[in-house]
């Protein structure tokens, strides 16, 4: 006789469903377990979704090779054979339903069936085939045990019969089983369910409850009590709100409300605003009543008064006012409570609370005075005026210049240079992790410093770093890696190859590691050309010149290593974030002079751009004692000496870097050291922001074709006028010069300012490099800001994560720098204040605060740019008003004065037609004017205000108040 498996297989092949159950009934528990793996194999075969032929459109057609009947036989077998885990994993469409299970459950019920059915109560959606009626039948037949959770989920559907597309109301269903109304209906108040969804289009359930109470089937008092309790049961917002609505639908009487007070007071703790506000409204009517639990309510006040919902705070204040009116003896206590509403930076709420306090509180009470004056710092001007008797009198603001803290010599943090070979080892192994931006500079400098210690043992110690370098330049790209990391990895690999050349024996471990990696690449059929090419051939795929300064510095270092020269790199930072002390620079240059050799030109330029001066006189005397010739003149020039351009200069690009970093006012005289126009050298550019009209390709479903349709998008266009001003040499002459290697006076040594560029079609890794690019010229990174603004703000708001990262990294870099912003810095910071990313806006606000403190930012320029962006409403004005309220208002008297300038220029540049939220902007302006005790005198601002007043009557009161000014007030 054939085995069960064979019989089953035949049955399946021949699709004999009628014979299935008798066959399955022969199985014992042990046999079921044994057959399960066989069944899984059949599943894989019969449920395989694969190509079954060609579709009528010519492509591949996918489907099952098995028949519907075969798959149904398998699904029925799953129920009988599998354990719960396997059953849930397998395909079981159409099995868990009444008509199918009615044929199986009488002779077989899996042990997991009860848990499986009851577990549906945890599902977000309960399948439509499980309903209250069938579930009760299963309970009656003792196939499952009753779950209150699942009953609460199933019951909302009981009185609604779906008759597509309508629903039929069948309240009689509630009366079919006595247990439904006696017990189950109360589960709806206790467990999460979908009553709110069942009631979404009409109020069937609310009506049902009311009818049941009116018929006295359900006790009204209990329904009300359960309903109030349900609001507090931490249900989701929709269901909480539904119970709130039900409570109101019942129109509870005053007596009922008074008896339910303890439960209703608890509702004030709800995280949802609707229940809180509904109960507060009910309390408003109740507050005058003798039965009102005023102590209980007052205990809850701190919570509701600090609510983010203005309605909640206003309602609470209204109730408190009723209480204050009624209980004259408790007015001070109630006023102290009300003073908590002053925490909100909203003038209406503050004024309401202030009026309340001034009306009811006793100004001589120390307790009230203490409570109110605690909010003095955050009070807006009108509330401050009302509360004057309760506040500490303020000293008039001192002169602006005294209030701004100018830090002449910032607290500079020195960077630790590796002191021994072991420290070089640990630097090298983390150099590609960007733990610090300056690690890029430190690594080649440290290798130069320890190149004479490359023994076999030390090279072995460096192997993990070499291995990281190999993986960095040839492994899969990771999201936090920059192109500079790949460049540095290439440098380290090239240095390893140089070691083989210099010390063939000692460098053997490196050679083995290198060969191993090369073989692995070959085994994986990867192109090894990139790996084998050295640092000299390194190039970024966008061909952006912006990476050349870093590459040239690495080449400068590599040249010294190739020639076994023990000289330092000039540009290695000595202080964070990437600064070089002028004293150290002088010492480094003198080492080159002593060895009668020249530093690399790019290294020299970057060093000069990174240079900072703390003590001019000391630096000058050090330069006098250590340097001679052109380098001595150059350092003198940086320190303030007069020097003129000289055709004999060998270091022309370095002089240019010195002029543009330290003596920009002299650029006109020195512009001949570059082929580019002065405007470009000074990071000049032009920009405009507007709403751009363009044509967008959209699919027309009716015509079934693509069409061009007009559309609009925001745009910020930054134009850089970069012009080659060098006289054009004749073709033959220039060819002759090229062939002979002659350099005429019209040919220039390319330098840093020839290479600044941020070029990409789609941003890929530039966001991970931008800090290090900006740190090439930490004293004046304006060119980079022009390029970032040009690329990242093209469509105003930031769209991708990489764009955001680029802008945030640039903002982070600016936070570590201290220089007087030019036009690019202002455009960058002002635009960031309006962008669609909160982190970006907060950073921009912080930079403004820092800039005012260090006197490096011009608030008028910031205001002007914001005004121009907002002329056409490029960003919702709310972004700006929220930012000012939360981060820029009342930082210090000096900041408030600068904020006033910012707002005035912003308003004067805005459109005569007011935008949404202009009222808030004007409220803030009024607040700042009041704080500064100033009046508006700028006619441009007054004109715009007049225009706004004409267009919108709601703005008139605040505009009138602004026009009155505060310059005459105390």
């Amino acid at each position: 006789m054939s085995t069960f498996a064979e019989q089953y297989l035949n049955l399946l092949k021949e699709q004999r469903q009628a014979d299935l159950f008798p066959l399955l009934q022969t199985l014992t528990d042990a046999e079921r377990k044994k057959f399960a793996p066989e069944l899984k194999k059949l599943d894989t075969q019969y449920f395989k979704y694969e190509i079954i032929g060609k579709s009528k459109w010519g492509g591949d057609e996918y489907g099952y090779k098995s028949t519907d009947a075969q798959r149904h036989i398998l699904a029925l077998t799953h129920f009988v054979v599998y354990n719960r885990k396997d059953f849930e994993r397998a395909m079981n469409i159409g099995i868990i339903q009444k008509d199918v299970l009615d044929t199986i459950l009488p002779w077989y019920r899996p042990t997991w069936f009860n848990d499986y059915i009851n577990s549906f109560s945890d599902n977000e959606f309960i399948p439509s085939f499980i309903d209250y009626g069938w579930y009760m039948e299963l309970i009656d037949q003792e196939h499952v045990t009753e779950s209150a959770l699942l009953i609460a989920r199933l019951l909302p559907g009981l009185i609604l019969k779906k008759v597509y597309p309508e629903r039929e109301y069948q309240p009689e269903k509630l009366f079919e089983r006595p247990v439904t109304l006696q017990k189950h209906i109360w589960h709806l108040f206790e467990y999460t369910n979908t009553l709110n969804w069942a009631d979404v289009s009409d109020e069937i359930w609310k009506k049902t409850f009311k009818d049941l109470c009116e018929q006295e089937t359900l006790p009204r008092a209990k329904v009300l009590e359960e309903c109030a309790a349900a609001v507090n049961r931490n249900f989701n917002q929709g269901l909480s709100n539904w119970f709130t609505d039900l409570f109101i639908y019942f129109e509870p009487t005053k007596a009922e409300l008074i008896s339910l007070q303890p439960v209703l007071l608890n509702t004030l703790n709800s995280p949802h605003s609707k229940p809180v506000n509904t109960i507060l409204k009910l309390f408003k009517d109740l507050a005058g009543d003798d039965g009102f639990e005023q102590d209980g309510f007052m205990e809850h006040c701190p919570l509701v008064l600090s609510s983010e919902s203005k309605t909640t705070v206003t309602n609470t204040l209204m109730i408190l006012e009723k209480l204050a009116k009624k209980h004259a003896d408790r007015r001070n206590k109630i006023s102290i409570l009300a003073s908590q509403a002053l925490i909100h930076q909203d003038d209406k709420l503050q004024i309401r609370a202030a009026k309340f306090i001034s009306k009811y509180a006793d100004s001589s009470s120390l307790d009230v005075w203490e409570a109110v004056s605690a909010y003095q710092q955050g009070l807006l001007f009108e509330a401050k005026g009302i509360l004057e008797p309760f506040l500490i009198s303020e000293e008039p603001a001192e002169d602006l210049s005294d209030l701004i803290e100018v830090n002449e010599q910032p607290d500079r943090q020195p960077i630790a240079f590796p002191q021994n070979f072991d420290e070089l080892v640990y630097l090298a192994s983390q150099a590609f992790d960007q733990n610090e931006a300056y690690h890029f500079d430190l690594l080649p400098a440290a290798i130069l410093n320890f190149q004479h210690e490359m023994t076999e043992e030390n090279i072995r110690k460096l192997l993990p770093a070499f291995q990281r370098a190999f993986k960095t330049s040839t492994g899969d790209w990771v999201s936090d890696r920059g192109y500079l990391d790949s460049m540095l990895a290439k440098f380290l690999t090239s240095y390893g190859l140089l070691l083989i050349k210099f010390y063939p024996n000692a460098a053997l471990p490196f050679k083995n590691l290198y060969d191993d990696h090369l073989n692995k690449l070959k085994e994986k059929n990867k192109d090894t050309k990139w790996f084998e090419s050295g640092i000299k051939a390194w190039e970024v795929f966008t061909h952006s010149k912006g990476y050349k300064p870093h590459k040239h510095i690495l080449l400068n270092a590599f040249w010294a290593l190739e020639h076994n020269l023990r000289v330092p790199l000039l540009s290695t930072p000595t202080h964070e974030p990437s600064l070089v002390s002028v004293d150290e620079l002088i010492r480094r240059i003198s080492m080159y002079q002593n060895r009668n050799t020249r530093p690399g030109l790019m290294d020299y330029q970057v060093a000069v751009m990174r240079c900072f001066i703390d003590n001019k006189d000391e630096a000058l005397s050090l330069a006098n004692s250590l340097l001679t010739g052109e380098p001595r003149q150059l350092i003198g020039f940086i320190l303030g000496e007069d020097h003129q351009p000289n055709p004999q200069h060998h270091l022309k690009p370095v002089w240019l870097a010195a002029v543009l970093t330290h003596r920009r006012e002299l650029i006109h005289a020195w512009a001949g050291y570059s082929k580019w126009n002065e405007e470009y050298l000074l990071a000049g550019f032009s920009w405009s922001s507007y709403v751009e009209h363009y044509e967008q390709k959209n699919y027309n479903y009716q015509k079934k074709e693509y069409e061009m349709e007009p559309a609009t998008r925001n745009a910020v266009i930054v134009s850089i006028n970069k012009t080659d001003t060098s006289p054009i040499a004749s073709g033959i002459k220039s060819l002759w010069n090229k062939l002979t290697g002659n350099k005429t006076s019209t040919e220039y040594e390319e330098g840093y300012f020839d290479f600044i560029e941020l070029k990409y079609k789609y941003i890929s890794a530039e966001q991970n490099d931008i800090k290090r690019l900006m740190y090439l010229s930490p004293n004046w990174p304006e060119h980079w800001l022009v390029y970032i603004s040009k690329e990242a703000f093209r469509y105003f708001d930031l769209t991708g994560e990489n764009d955001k990262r680029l802008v945030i990294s640039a903002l982070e870099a600016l936070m570590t720098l201290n220089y007087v912003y030019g036009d690019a810095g202002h455009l960058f910071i002002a635009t960031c204040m309006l962008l669609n990313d909160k982190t970006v806006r907060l950073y921009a606000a912080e930079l403004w605060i820092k800039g005012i403190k260090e006197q490096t930012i011009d608030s008028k320029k910031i205001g002007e740019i914001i005004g121009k962006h907002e002329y056409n409403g490029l960003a919702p004005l709310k972004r700006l008003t929220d930012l000012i309220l939360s981060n820029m208002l009342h930082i210090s008297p000096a900041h408030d004065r600068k904020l006033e300038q910012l707002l005035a220029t912003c308003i004067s540049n805005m459109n005569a037609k007011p935008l949404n939220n202009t009222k808030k902007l004007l409220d803030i302006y009024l607040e700042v004017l009041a704080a500064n005790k100033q009046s508006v005198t700028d006619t441009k601002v007054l004109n715009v205000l007049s225009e706004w007043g004409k267009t919108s009557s709601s703005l008139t009161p605040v505009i009138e108040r602004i026009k009155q000014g505060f310059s005459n007030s105390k």
Partner: protein
Amino acid sequence: MDSYSYANQEFNPTLLAVNEGLDLKKVENLTGRLSAIGLLGFDLDDNNFFYRRLPFKTSRILTLNPRLKDAEKLLAEGKVQIKSNTGNRVEAEVEGSGVHHMVLLEADQDRCTCMWFSKNQGERGVCKHILAVKKLLAK
């Protein structure tokens, strides 16, 4: 631990040593070790350690710590070699995949050349190589 403390109770190693008659040196690193396996938390407001009752058997902790498990494996395979030990400064070599990592234990700092350590600089705990060296020294 479960027999000494209840959940969220303040944990004071000195008090424990006094109560249980333990050597103070023995409990010196106790807070660090217990925190590392998740049994202690640190309350920033109260400035003290507190005991955490974990939702699984404490005997499973070691198997849930992958780096410690890996460190045991390195030791079992004999991949750890102490190169010098002057008391204040221990230099060791641990075999990694394809290279030998250099582990340096100094008074104020433990360092390793592996990727985990290079990336996190000890901020997410020490790497398996440092752990292995420490375990070898403790034997």
